[in-house]
């Protein structure tokens, strides 16, 4: 089974991953304009983009455990998944700032005064260096530093899911599921990290 998946995955070009993963952008914009996102499209679009970003972060976190525990090798798509997650976070942020909050001073006030927005913004800021170093040249230049830098993915994932929990009203299941999945995926890495530190 794993071999079959690996065989198929080898034939899929990474640009196809970009194209397929970006299809929701025009679809969501079209839906927002035509009522497909409900009667209040600004909030709906904002939430949808944030949700996809979080899902991509989770997909990215699945890639190395899939190889380690299931022998499924999708490592060559990991960069694309990370860059796509960044693109969706950027769009989420833009919709929030431009269409929802609408003025720069209110954006700044919200980032400073509202902890759940501060946390979301922190996750975005931490993603910027990762996006900027998502090219072969940076990997070569930075060497081992690149690997350590990209461990930022872990706090980013936690911040993003806490951001989701914090903005929800009442006791809701969905954001808690996201955090649990992320914590589970991070827990899978603990034995390997411990070994590395011990060695």
């Amino acid at each position, binding site marked *: 089974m794993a071999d079959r998946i690996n065989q198929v995955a080898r034939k899929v070009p990474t640009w196809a991953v970009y194209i397929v993963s970006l299809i929701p952008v025009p679809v969501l914009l079209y839906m927002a304009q035509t009522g497909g996102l409900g009667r209040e499209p600004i*909030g709906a679009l904002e939430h949808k983009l944030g949700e996809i970003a979080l899902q991509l972060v989770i997909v990215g976190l699945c890639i190395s455990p899939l190889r380690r525990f299931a022998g499924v090798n999708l490592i060559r798509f990991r960069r694309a998944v990370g860059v796509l997650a960044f693109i969706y976070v950027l769009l989420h942020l833009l919709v929030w700032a431009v269409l*929802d909050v609408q003025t720069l001073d209110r954006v700044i006030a919200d980032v400073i005064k509202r902890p759940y927005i501060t946390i979301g913004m922190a996750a975005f800021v931490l993603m910027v260096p990762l996006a900027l170093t998502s090219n072969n040249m940076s990997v070569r230049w930075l060497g081992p530093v690149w690997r350590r830098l990209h461990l930022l993915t872990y706090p980013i994932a936690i911040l993003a899911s806490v951001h989701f929990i914090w*903005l929800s009203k009442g006791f*809701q299941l969905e954001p808690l599921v996201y955090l649990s999945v992320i914590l589970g995926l991070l827990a899978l890495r603990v034995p390997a990290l411990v070994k590395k530190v011990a060695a």
Partner: protein
Amino acid sequence: GLMGAAGMARAQEAEELVPSAWEDITQYNNFYEFGTGKGDPARNAHTLTTEPWTVVIDGLVDNPGDYSMEQIMDAMTFEERIYRFRCVEAWSMVIPWNGFELADLLTLAGVQEGGKYVAFETALRPDEMPGVRFPTLDWPYVEGLRMDEAMHPLTIMATGIYDKTIPNQNGAPMRLVVPWKYGFKSIKSIVRITVTEDEPPTSWNKANGREYGFYSNVNPEVDHPRWSQASERVVGGGLFSKRQPTLMFNGYEDEVASLYAGMDLRANY
């Protein structure tokens, strides 16, 4: 008197206020008993049986008992009220309600001397309400008003919108409307009204007392801990609609500010 002044103010407002589209009013709702998504109530609330419907009126009243919806409808005087509706989540609409003044219903029940507050309760029917299988809130949903708020002429019980029977997702067959308070105070699908001596517990206050107070008057100067209340997004304006400033007491300051004279609105949020 107060009634006349309020009536005049309402008449003036009715000219300025443009009611939101029926689709906006009936397809963008918070009614967590039917799900937490804004479209969930419109999708799921058809399962709610609204006929027959009985409202228990009890507590400190002269005529406690089970009141059938027909009984209530027959006894009340109906009128249209076009009100601003401001959700605590910073979105708003304008809704042409049909209903009657809560004061008339309370008078029918006969409020006794010691009655200082009115408590309300929403139906709790796990078979008909998919949202109550999960403890998003401590079910049933409960709300409350101080007696002077409940008796205020702006406070109504709504049974219709746009001269049509109120849809289930909007709180059929009868819901409270308190236009100067955040929307969650206007409790839906009411099955019990209790006149009490003490301030009754309210659902969102129980869930998060730091964020949702008993009063919850619309106030652009007192922010929600997680977001600003200074402005609001008008539902139905599309992707590029401008936010509009939120008005003190949701625009009903002249009518209701006196209820809170001398009170610190920051402490009594």
